């Protein structure tokens, strides 16, 4: 079972303050920490678990600048066998389709039974790369996958619908699954493994090497701006003592306590 996992290095934005840079099209990144995209981390873990169960190889692919090699190395430390970084130099702005096109050109010459991606990147939130890549490679897919059982030439997967409902599907391999968070418990790499991974080779490919000088950019971010402030919350002022006292009074006045 040869598995390709596509991972992305993203800024951690869930708990950080995010500001627009001077171009108006990107965010200020200096004060942000970067890590593997959350659902990609689950996809990586799923690939390693499947390899441990059935043998084979795990190949990591990431499109990005040299800094994303830190993220790739962590994946190698966790158990991936080899890695490719596609340099984004010269590509300019990339959207979901363009990224899928780059990945298609990179993966089409590899031998694989399964491709795993995350189901959404927490920075741009497109949820587009995985299923688009499957279409470009001409293989079946499923997104929001929360369980993967491999059988001979087939996979039985479960995917998340709404309101807690799941559906089970049977999909022919090779296939692409966009993995939902929570499918497994991503491991941490040991210090020894991290040290060992530092010496592993990461193959770096550029536009020419994958035969794609200009990915097709179909959407373009014109500008970023703070969301319009609607009926915003009444912010209670003061320290914990004051805000808590005020909130308890509000609960009392509303008959909650």
């Amino acid at each position, binding site marked *: 079972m040869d598995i390709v996992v596509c991972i992305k290095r993203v800024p951690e934005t869930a*708990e950080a303050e995010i500001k627009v840079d001077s171009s108006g099209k990107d*965010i200020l990144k200096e004060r942000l920490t970067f890590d593997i995209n959350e659902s990609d981390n*689950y996809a990586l873990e799923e690939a390693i678990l499947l390899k441990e169960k059935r043998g084979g190889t795990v190949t990591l692919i990431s499109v990005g600048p040299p800094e994303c090699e830190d993220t790739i190395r962590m994946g190698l430390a966790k158990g991936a066998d080899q890695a490719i970084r596609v340099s984004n130099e010269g590509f300019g702005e990339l959207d*979901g389709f363009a990224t899928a096109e780059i990945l298609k050109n990179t993966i089409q010459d590899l031998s694989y039974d399964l491709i795993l991606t995350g189901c959404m990147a927490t*920075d*741009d*939130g497109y*949820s*587009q790369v995985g*299923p*688009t890549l*499957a*279409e470009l490679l001409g293989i*079946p*897919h*499923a*997104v*929001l996958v929360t369980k993967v059982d491999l059988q001979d030439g087939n996979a039985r997967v*479960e*995917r*998340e*619908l*709404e*309101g*807690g*409902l799941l*559906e*089970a599907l049977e*999909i*022919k391999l090779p*296939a692409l699954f966009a993995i939902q*968070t*929570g499918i497994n418990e991503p491991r941490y790499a040991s210090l020894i493994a991290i040290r060992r991974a530092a010496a592993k080779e990461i193959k770096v490919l550029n536009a020419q090497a994958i035969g794609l000088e200009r990915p097709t950019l*179909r*959407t*373009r*971010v*014109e*500008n*970023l*701006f*703070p*969301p319009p402030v609607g009926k*915003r*919350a*009444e*912010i*209670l002022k003061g*320290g914990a003592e004051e*805000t*808590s*006292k005020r*909130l*308890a009074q*509000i*609960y*009392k006045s*509303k008959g*909650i*306590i």
Partner: protein
Amino acid sequence: MGGEMGKIFTLVEHRRGQIHDISFELLTKGRDLAAQLNSEVVALVLGHGTEEVVERVKGEAHQVLWVKGESLKEPNAEAYQIVLSHILKEYNPFLTLIGHTALGMDLAPPLAASLDIPLATDCVGIELEDKRVITIRQPYNGKLNARVSFADAPAFMITLRQGSFPSEEGNLTGKVVDIPSPLEKEPDYRRFVEYIEAAVGEVDITQADVIIAVGRGIKEKENLALLEDLADSLGGVLACSRPIVDEGWLSKDRQVGSSGKTVKPKLYMAIGISGAFQHITGMKNADTIVAINKDPNAPIFNVAHYGIVDDLFKVVPVLKKKILELKG
């Protein structure tokens, strides 16, 4: 502007006889855009045994294209893709609107790629500016908005975020047109097997008057005890956003949001929850919403009635004390 007739096509999403709310949001937005373009909105209904669905959406569109077939009984993205690419190639609408739902996320990207047309996903706004289509998206966990434009093309596809567009009753009399299904059987490379219902847990959070919901901000599982104490002081139950379930700290039946439960308690406290739209979908109709978060720009403050911008670990113990004092 490009596309024959410049029509707006919208996909009617339904599962097990229930029409998904997003379908009416798409149709409402479709009518709005069609009016601006002096064009028409067309509803697409695919499925088996969909007479009632068609009856219900007839008044919402100028035309209903109806594809029937047993192979379309359950919404299967690969089967839908075959049928829709066939229809869209033939009719060549200017805009195709699909919900950014579990189905839409599975269907729209490969469909747009197969038709070679631009796609913008998870949009919260669509504007026609000087004959150009501009969409509004919310990247970075909803902390910023983005204006996104399309490359030149004769047709475009957009997936819309649920609950971001109004849903109004239409007063049209859509002509229903039967389209023979190009699909003889469900594709053998992707077959529907079964639905798996949500597991029933120990507490039904949808029945609670007071919900204390926790998110990523609580950092460690051990800190749940602090929030349990607060819930006890208010006679409430503990619930959570997705990351807490992903970590395995609380069970799935405690999750509020689009893939979990929808709740409408008297009091909803969102503690250490930034407010991703998937979470907000599940709790925005609570009577009173209170958010505690250290990021003043967290989207949760846009739906909360009261907010405290502070470290939850400082506030929660004091709040519990104040509540117990007032209860006497």
